[in-house]
């Protein structure tokens, strides 16, 4: 094999792997990404039932209903609209009423959101940023709930 042929073998191999990867990425991005929506989006954008989405907002005060079984029902609100959510399983530690939460799952035709994953915060001072942004949009953002530190000495 000449130097030129060798080089073309390597270039061909590299391009082949690269195009395989591009192909895989395009397909995966088309099918697997999940969009984030607020209750307002769900009402306004007519999200199709059965499509996998992330729904974010606050857990509505007084909405959490634990039945006798494993299923928990509550509502996610952006303070103007609320969507009922149903979830079976163990809720995250920091899940509670009035706190930010992101639920992943699907809407059914009756408008109830069946979640298979519930994400809450990792610590007390933290609000999922999508939720914070959504609340800012609604004009009900209370600012950082984090206690401000005592004035630093300069």
């Amino acid at each position, binding site marked *: 094999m000449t130097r030129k042929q060798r080089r073309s073998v390597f270039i061909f191999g590299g391009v082949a792997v690269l195009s395989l990867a591009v192909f895989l990425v395009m397909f*995966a*991005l088309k099918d697997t990404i*999940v969009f984030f929506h607020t209750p307002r989006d769900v009402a306004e954008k007519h999200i199709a039932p059965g499509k996998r989405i992330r729904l974010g907002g606050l857990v509505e005060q007084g909405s959490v209903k634990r039945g*006798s079984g494993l299923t928990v029902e509550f509502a996610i609100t952006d303070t103007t609209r609320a969507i009922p959510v149903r979830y079976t399983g163990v809720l995250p530690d920091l899940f509670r009423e009035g706190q930010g939460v992101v639920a992943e799952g699907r809407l059914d035709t009756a408008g109830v959101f069946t979640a298979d994953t519930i994400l809450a915060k*990792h610590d007390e001072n933290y609000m999922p940023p999508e939720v914070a942004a959504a609340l800012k949009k609604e004009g009900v953002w209370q600012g950082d709930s984090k206690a401000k530190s005592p004035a630093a000495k300069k």
Partner: protein
Amino acid sequence: MITELGHFALVLALVVALVQTLLPALGAHYKDARLMAVGEPAAVAQLILIGLSFFALMHAYVVSDFSVETVWANSHSLKPMLYKVSGVWGNHEGSMLLWVLILAAFGAAVALFGDNLPRGLRANVLSVQALIAVAFLLFIIAASNPFIRIPVQSEGRGLNPILQDPALAFHPPFLYAGYVGLSIAFSFAVAALIEGRTDAAWARWVRPWTLAAWVCLTLGIAMGSWWAYYELGWGGWWFWDPVENASFMPWLAATALLHSALVMEKREALKVWTILLAILAFSLSLMGTFLVRSGVLTSVHAFAVDPRRGVFILSIMMLLIGGALALFAWRAPSLKQGGLFSPISREGALVLNNVLLTVSCGTVFIGTLYPLALDALVGAKISVGPPYFNATFGPLMVPLLFAVPIGSMLSWKRGDLRGVMERLMLTGLVTAFALAVTFAFMHRGPWLAPFGLALGVWVCAGAVSEWGQRVKAFAAPWDEVWRRARGLPRAAYGTALAHFGIGMAMIGIVATTAWQSESVVALKPGEQTTIAGYTLDFKGVAPSQGPNYNELLGLFSVSRNGRPVVDLTPSKRAYVMPPQPTTEAAIHVALLGDLYVVLGDEIKDGGGYIVRLYFNPLVRFIWIGALVMAIGGVFSLSDRRLRVGAPRRAARASLAAAE
């Protein structure tokens, strides 16, 4: 007082780093030995100063000095001592200080153990290393200073309970040692570009440093995965979380770099590519630091969101990466091309390894940054989850793993594929046997899973077989096998172990992904449940008290076929400060599979408790595999030929021979 001394030492370290950036590089340019000689003492002084500063901060944590802002915000007097010490890096400011401490330690190591490096190269390496230190010291002093004082407070706000775990003492230091260790490869690459020449000796110097960083990174990632597994209570070991990806991408690049540096060292080929990889590997580390520390991502690792910090780290990144890539574009064409090789050869196989590793690293990169880019450009909020990574990264790993045993048996320059296939007969038979057995015993799960498992077996068996053939196991008398096994270079053991480890990890990943059992049940005291052959008796709950938390223990007795196995006590903890609940899973660890129990909420009206159970088959193989890989790296590192002082000794020997 000690805190102020630490602050002062940090500022002094910045000054030393500035001097170390300028003088040795100037000296190398003008061939002035005195200027070049500034590098080594400066690097050592920098390490001592940053070390002083680090211990001053640690002192503030240990004595709970709540007049220091970071101590007040992240510590508590009731916190156990282990977390007072490791809590130093359990927050943004302290973790950045640890980052520069490790950076300085690597710089000083080059200064102390690099006697055999050409003077000019060493001066330039130390200069580049100091430039990185200048950037990050400026960042710490200006935008995340851990020594800021506040009016003294009576009590601290405490450390996030999720971080109060012994793993905090190990995971961040190892991960950082890996991240930052790659800075040495970067500095060597930039120094080589400044000098305009590279050779096999350059690769021989770079490889041990990269290998050391790679070992630390492997251990750091594995420990992080293990920690997430038992702490988060989700029963999973890897979530394709952007923060995990941020550490995984440098690992992929470093793995590629190790293999390409081998080609450069042995055959003087792939020079330009190796230099580029060295730059990219550290760039990905910097990007990881940016993603994790700037607060653009949402995770346990994002301690505080301060936009100034993000912009600062982004500028450092632009400066270092942009500068290095510009230098590369300018100087790389002047590097001489090396030896020729045919596509079917060890070099060819290593090129395939590099192509697949970098392309797969690219798919992880796209999946990690796409949501951020989309949010910044059009404001759409999306999440890219495990399905994306499984669909892109997974298929690219298949040819890579398939090629591992073949590539490591091919000879340099021109390989004999047919001969290699013949030598792999036994490996192939073992693999086929594993495939058949898995299919025979499989009663559920995807039909692709046995092939994945067999691929892992193929890699493991290939590693064993290559070693066996080199020592002539079963083919020669045992004393000769023993002699050969002892005579085989440590690097050969390193390669075999590392490849065996990746095969083990593959087996664990496939088994636990395909055949995990999960069940969520409501249990009243006295009731039973079963999973994967285990029977769990729920005896009720009992309160208990820890040093800075109260907890509710769920009491379970586990039995199998009527024989008691173990008592498990998963718990729900309520920490005092910060007042935050956590869930502690209870895990029965076994090589064949973990039984994983999580105690959930109480159901109203005496309905008992929600309990989540997992059985994770072979999940231990993942971390044991990573450990075996790291041990392989250490073996390789201890090889006489790779030892940092080796070229000098070889030079002495040739001098002695000449006399």
